[in-house]
């Protein structure tokens, strides 16, 4: 009897780390099966980055600064945006996109039956390695842009930067999980990606541009405190490209709080949504 028993479900953190590496390895094997496709995805991804840079190079022909951000300060901002977003793409995006299809087809049943945490399985099952190309390109852009800035970033800023990149990724992940929960309620949410793209597009610009009008101040408050996506890029980019002051310190403290709150809230909401999941397959 005992020899037929299934292996015990993973409980410790170490088990989950091991699982994660297994997911990463399997995804890499799958990606390497179609090697030229992988290469093409790497190249096209970085071309997209250069096109975007081209757009801002064009804009900076007509102006010296956008809302107080000079050209290379802004390029640090863009590099930060790409660093955070590429990590989201690598770890979470393909899984979240699949989730909405799993709900529609009833494939979610199989995930629910597995003896591990459902959110963990659904969030990290596939690792999209080809998006890591953008991460490298963005690192290059960051180094080049920092070299062009008059002052060097402070030691504190440089140390906190990676921490806030991760916080930003987790915050965006929370927003994504919250949206994913809606796909369970709606039955299908094909526009999940659009939704995600449009909401996070607010985070892709320096928060200073939302100012000087009632609507701007309202947006700034809403996207700082209600759906805290403005801190995702702004906090790490400010740490690197601008001198530290009281305002940015306050915002940095708040960003950590928002990350913890966002993760907690999205997990709670996702679990509630799962309770109302009606299988489509049976």
């Amino acid at each position, binding site marked *: 009897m005992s020899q037929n028993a299934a292996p015990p479900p993973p409980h410790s953190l170490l088990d989950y780390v091991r699982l994660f590496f297994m997911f990463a390895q399997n995804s890499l094997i799958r990606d390497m099966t179609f090697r030229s496709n992988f290469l*093409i995805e790497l190249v*096209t991804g970085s*071309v*997209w980055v250069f*096109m975007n840079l*081209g*757009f801002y190079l*064009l*804009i900076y*022909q*007509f*102006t*010296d*600064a*956008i*809302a107080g951000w000079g050209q290379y300060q802004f390029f640090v901002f863009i590099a930060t945006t790409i660093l955070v977003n590429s990590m989201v793409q690598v770890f979470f995006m393909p899984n979240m996109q699949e989730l909405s299809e799993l709900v529609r087809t009833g494939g979610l049943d199989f995930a629910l039956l597995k003896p591990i945490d459902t959110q963990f399985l659904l969030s990290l099952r596939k690792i999209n390695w080809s998006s890591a190309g953008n991460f490298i390109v963005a690192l290059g852009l960051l180094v080049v842009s920092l070299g062009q800035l008059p002052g060097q970033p402070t030691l504190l800023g440089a140390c906190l930067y990676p921490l806030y990149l991760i916080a930003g990724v987790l915050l965006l992940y929370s927003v994504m999980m919250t949206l994913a929960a809606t796909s369970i309620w*709606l*039955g*299908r*949410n*094909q*526009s999940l990606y*659009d*939704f995600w793209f*449009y*909401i996070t*597009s*607010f985070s*892709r*610009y320096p928060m*200073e*541009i*939302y100012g*000087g009008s009632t*609507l*701007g101040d309202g*947006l700034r408050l809403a996207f700082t405190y209600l759906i805290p996506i403005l801190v995702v890029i702004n906090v790490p980019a400010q740490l690197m490209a601008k001198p530290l002051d009281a305002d940015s310190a306050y915002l940095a403290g708040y960003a950590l709080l928002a990350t913890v709150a966002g993760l907690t809230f999205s997990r709670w909401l996702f679990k509630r949504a799962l309770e109302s999941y009606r299988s489509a397959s049976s």
Partner: protein
Amino acid sequence: MSATLSTQTTPTARSAWWTIFRTCIEERLVYRGDFALGTLMRFLPIVTQVFLWTAVFASAKTGDGAIRGYTRDDVVAYYLLTMLGRALSSMPGLASGIAAQIRTGEIKKFMIQPIDLIGFCLAARLAHKLVYYTVAIGPFALVFWLCGDYFPEWPSASRFAAFVLALGMGFALGFFLEATLGMIGFWFLEVSSLLFVYMLFNFFFSGHMFPLEFLNGSLPKPLAAVLAYQPLQYLAYFPAAVYLGKLDDEAVLRGLALQAGWVLFFFMTCRWSMHAGMKRYSGYGG
């Protein structure tokens, strides 16, 4: 038996079209929640664009506060108008859908049934666009009304007619251009990377990110000439520039003629590549 047969007439081309059209409308409305949400979301980027361009113009280096003849209000109005143009001319999933049908072999049904592939796709697109506009006209009207101050005076009747014509031809051009790209699937099977390249070009040269005048002086001369004649500008830039009066009458007429030429070109290329592709196509298995 023969009596039943005689009353059952073969479907006319018109009734077949009507059936396709109606089915596609119904299909589009199955997941209403998803659809309505998606439509509303599409208007969010306008807000960030208004703020971005306001910040750019606030510190613009040009003395008269205009960039290449566009004031901040012009740019915002331009951006809204290109959204209208792109809502008509963008064909999400058309090229990749045709290529996928070729790859999976689904295309066979168009070879053995008396239904024209391009006609079917066109009817389906028309139905989808119709449903889209029925739902989107609310948000569109609201946003245009809210942003009314950004717009110049209404254009003259003839200008407006040219604008509507350019939008209509934009739909046709978008459709036949993307359909042609899909037909390339007969030769290459996997066209997704090709479509990505197309998207990149579209990003810059359809003018949906910025008025194409902004590129004046930044491009080498031969490229500037290509820019003036390429078809992508008619998907977004041209209708908006017509409405905003950025082109004189002669340029408008010349543009309309060139646009019509491109529509015809892609209409024919699309048909030709479908027939050539079907000739070399081979399907295996059931």
